[in-house]
């Protein structure tokens, strides 16, 4: 209650002069541990770990780490997050100050910190393909080539995952987990009941005809979320790609204006008019879509391959247990197709201004390759805080459950670590079986994933400036076509108008270096 008193005193002071108010309030913020100021790498003076401050050995350097609140042990409870931070400090022998914004505002927060000159020493980036080029162009991230080479465990990761995000042959990040791939999930009980006969790689036509069997049953045949990017799954079947990409000849082209896009859009339109796709997809959240399938309200949806176990376990929790069958790709008329490839979604970077890059690298190394740390940070948290072990199985504590935490084993299939047997707990038998299947699904999906391309920043100013508009425009046009507000022709004509107005052709020429 000391704070309340301080507030009262401040209130009095402020009534006299706001200057006095400002003065005292800034001093109140500097009441935090003096070590914050002593270091001074970042102006953000968060409370440091008071509990451990006393035992911290001298050589521990202090740095900031920023990652969204779906990490740090999957609990939004600050005390529980602190336990994970403590563990990380111990393992990497550094002192950390963590910034853990809500996941929905993560990009805004990171962007604000970076633009405001408070680049965190270590930070995770999401949608890495879109964002990394921008950070590199701004010279805010450190080139990690040498550091990765120096680390045995990090250089053991397949180089193709580094290459996916390399810019001019240089690597600026460490991928956190495998590329994200989405496939379709189809409830097996509904398949049986209504005689839907689909393989894991059916054709586009088969998909519509078979799913149409559900019309009039009250079950939504195919639930789809509001995020338009997911249409790429179907575009893959026609060799189409929304957005600018490098084609087979190594030339940058605009996917919306390629011939095959017309077929892809017509197919998507048919998917909607035939009643297969959820008529209300544009207002459906991911969570709602999933719940539709868990409860059997919908037969099929699109989701990450690593979420397979959720479908099996959650449908049981919902009282409608069923296995789901993955559909990795739909084969188009020319046999093309592939899963929705979202590439490396999350990666770790180090600030270009970081004073102790070696120490920062140590933190990343631990996060990405240490089995115990990876599991704790990515999913499960700390023993005694998030869970307790009973007969070799982890059980969530009550306090953790209250904040919405539940034990997840995604780390077993997502991470680059192959062996988690050193952990003191293992999933129970039933979960283990499900995860076994999931592992196979992930592997197969990786084989069948479609294309995803990255365009470097700083080559064409015109592109850097208009890429956001291009993305929002194609999404608008595609969704309007699917919903039937415009015909395919008119929609594409609208897009062409937009393209001309931003001088798209000049932009492509710049990108192609002409």
């Amino acid at each position, binding site marked *: 209650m000391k704070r309340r008193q301080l507030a009262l005193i401040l209130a009095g002071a*402020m*009534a*006299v*002069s*706001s*200057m006095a*108010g*400002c003065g005292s309030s800034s001093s109140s913020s500097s009441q935090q541990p003096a070590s914050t100021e002593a270091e001074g790498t970042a102006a953000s003076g968060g409370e440091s770990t008071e509990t451990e401050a006393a035992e911290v050995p001298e050589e521990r350097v202090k740095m900031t780490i920023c990652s969204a609140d779906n990490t740090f042990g999957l609990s939004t409870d600050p005390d529980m997050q602190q336990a994970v931070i403590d563990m990380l400090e111990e393992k990497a022998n550094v002192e950390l100050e963590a910034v853990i914004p809500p996941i929905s505002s993560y*990009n*805004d927060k990171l*962007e*604000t910190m*970076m*633009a405001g000159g408070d680049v965190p020493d270590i930070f995770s980036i999401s949608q890495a393909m879109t964002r990394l080029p*921008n950070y590199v*162009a*701004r*010279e*805010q991230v450190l080139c990690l080539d040498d550091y990765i080479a120096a680390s045995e465990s990090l250089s053991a990761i397949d180089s193709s995952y580094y290459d996916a995000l390399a810019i001019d042959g240089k690597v600026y990040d460490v991928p956190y987990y495998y590329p994200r791939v989405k496939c379709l999930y189809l409830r097996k009980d509904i398949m049986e009941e209504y005689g839907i006969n689909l393989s894991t790689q059916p054709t586009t036509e088969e998909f519509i005809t078979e799913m149409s069997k559900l019309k009039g049953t009250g079950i939504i045949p195919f639930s789809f979320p*509001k995020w*338009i990017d997911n249409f790429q799954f179907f575009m893959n079947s026609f060799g189409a790609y929304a957005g600018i990409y490098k084609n087979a000849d190594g030339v940058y082209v605009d996917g919306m204006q390629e011939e095959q896009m017309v077929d892809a859009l017509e197919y998507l339109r048919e998917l909607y008019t035939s009643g297969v796709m959820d*008529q*209300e997809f*544009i*207002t459906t959240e991911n969570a709602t879509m999933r719940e539709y399938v868990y409860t059997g309200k919908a037969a099929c949806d699109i989701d990450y391959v690593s979420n397979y176990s959720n479908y099996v376990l959650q449908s049981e929790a919902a009282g409608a247990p069923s296995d789901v069958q993955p559909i990795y790709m739909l084969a188009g008329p020319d046999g093309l197709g592939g899963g929705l490839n979202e590439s490396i979604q999350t990666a770790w970077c180090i600030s270009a201004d970081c004073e102790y890059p070696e120490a920062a690298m140590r933190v990343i190394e631990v996060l990405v390759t240490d089995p115990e740390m990876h599991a704790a940070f990515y999913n499960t948290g700390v023993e005694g805080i998030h869970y307790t072990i009973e007969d070799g199985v982890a059980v969530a504590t009550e306090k953790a459950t209250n904040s919405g935490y539940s034990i997840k084993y995604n780390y077993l299939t997502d991470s680059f670590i192959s062996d988690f047997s050193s952990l003191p707990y293992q999933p129970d038998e039933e979960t283990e079986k499900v995860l076994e299947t999931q592992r196979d699904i992930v592997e197969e999906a990786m084989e069948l994933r479609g294309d995803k391309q990255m365009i470097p920043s*700083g080559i064409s100013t015109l592109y*850097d*400036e208009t*890429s*956001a*508009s291009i993305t*929002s*425009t194609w*999404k*608008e046009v*595609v*969704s*309007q076509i699917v*919903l039937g*507000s415009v015909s395919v022709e008119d929609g594409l004509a609208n897009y062409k108008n*937009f393209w001309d*107005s*931003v001088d798209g052709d000049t932009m492509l020429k710049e990108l192609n270096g002409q």
Partner: protein
Amino acid sequence: MSSRKEESKVREKKKTGFSGLWRTICRQKYLILMMLPGLLWFLIFKYCTYAGLGLAFTNYGFKKSVDFVGLRNFIRLFRAPQFWTAFKNTLIISICNIVFYFPFPIIIALLINELRSLRTKRAVQFMIYIPYFFSWVVVGTIFVNILSPSSGVVNQILNAFGFDSIYFMADPKWFRAVLILSYIWRQMGYGAVIYVATLSTVDVQLYEAAAIDGCSKWKQVFYITLPSIKPTIVTMLLLNLSHVLLIFEQIMVMYNASVYSVSDVLQTYTYREGILSGNIAYGTAISLFTGVVSLVLVMGTNWISKHFLEDSIL
């Protein structure tokens, strides 16, 4: 009368120059002391940030080095078709909000004022104020549910009357109406609170005198109530105008790709270009432009208010 005298006195004193000014300051020392904290606050938290508007003339956020680029951001702005769409949408949505939303709280407040029982009065007031406690995220979810073509209440009513279901949230023709209605739904109580508070200060004796004169209730409303709350109405109009261009959160949580063309507004455009794409300078340029347009809008209304209502608000 006395105030006019005072003013002329002040003017006289001003003529005598610095010492006169000093004497006025001394006489108003309490007033000035009372103002000081607030004015300092404005200086620090408003005017200091305006220095940041200078970023609009740089390339901040795009490269490592920050250079002065003159009007480049503005040229790009005026050339961008998406900017003009956003500008047009902002104006349309703002004007509709003013036209349709603005009278609503006044009417509601007047109607509440006509209720006899104090308890009912308070209950109604309380209820219409509740939606204001919801953040837009929640309001957005609520409207998606109500307007759902398959299960929503609104479409079930439409179907009962033999009309087809409408996908309001995805139909460019209807989406703006959804925005305005949800705006009314959430903000109605907020405005009404101010009017109710103002109405409570209208002198009861005026009504009593009017009733004795045999004035009908309607006439009382037009000749007593409305003139009494006129300054508040004009103030609210101006204040509403000043931030209509800043409409953001509501649209951010309610719009979707299929209705971008009718609902992308200046603030969502700024958010996409400025924050998400990391081009701070460009975002600031849009902020500056928005500010100038708002200023013209508000000052214009203030001017009209001054000339036609003989009552300047600001």
